[in-house]
């Protein structure tokens, strides 16, 4: 079993896929999997022009780091890097990037999926949709379960 390191950040800068891959992959790895979340032009039937992401940045970094560590321990992958962007994003821009490097690919798929699902449940990030017709609206999200999150964090 490999022992990768976890890295997490919240940033205003555009995400750099090549850089994230280069920083994650070590000589022991045979594969890396990059999850690249992007802003869609449509949500629930409404035409989206842009999204405004905001975060409780310090807590979000701490939560993402913990989720990455959980995934490394659980699936035995190499390094995992999670970066969430905040601020105004246009359609097609990346909001989140998750790189999982791994000696073997099966573990990379499982770990990647784990990180994005947990991120969506537990990480304090919010988004407001700006519709093409002019309004904005907070996007409904997941309500983190205090007890479950504390338990998950203790694993």
């Amino acid at each position, binding site marked *: 079993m490999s022992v990768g390191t976890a890295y997490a950040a919240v940033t205003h800068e555009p995400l750099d896929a090549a850089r994230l891959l280069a920083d994650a992959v070590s000589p022991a790895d045979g594969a890396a999997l990059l999850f690249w979340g992007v802003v869609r032009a449509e949500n629930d039937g409404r035409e989206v022009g842009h999204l405004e992401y905001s975060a*409780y940045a310090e807590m979000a970094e701490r939560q993402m780091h913990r989720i990455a560590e959980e995934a490394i321990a659980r699936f035995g992958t190499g390094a995992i890097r999670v970066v969430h962007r905040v601020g105004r994003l246009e359609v097609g821009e990346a909001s989140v990037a998750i790189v999982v490097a791994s000696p073997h690919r099966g573990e990379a798929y499982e770990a990647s999926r784990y990180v994005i699902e947990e*991120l969506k449940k537990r990480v*304090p*990030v*919010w988004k*407001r949709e700006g519709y093409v017709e002019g309004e904005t609206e907070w996007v409904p999200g997941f309500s983190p*379960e205090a007890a479950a999150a504390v338990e998950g*964090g203790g694993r």
Partner: protein
Amino acid sequence: MIVRSLFFAQYRDMAGADELAVELPAGARVADLVERLRADRGGLAALPASPVVAVNMEYAPLGTSLSEGDEVAFIPPVAGG
């Protein structure tokens, strides 16, 4: 004692501020802070009775005891990714 209350997204819109310093009696719990905010502030009357909170950046139940200088964040449903 004084605790810092942080508001995000919809809750920030309700509070009309990112942050409020709230004075509470010693031994107060998160639930007491919630009750105070819902009673005191016009906008925050709309805060749920049992909101999700984080104390010092960890999710915490409403029964959690607070200490001087604690940072209590009110976390509306999250929508990252």
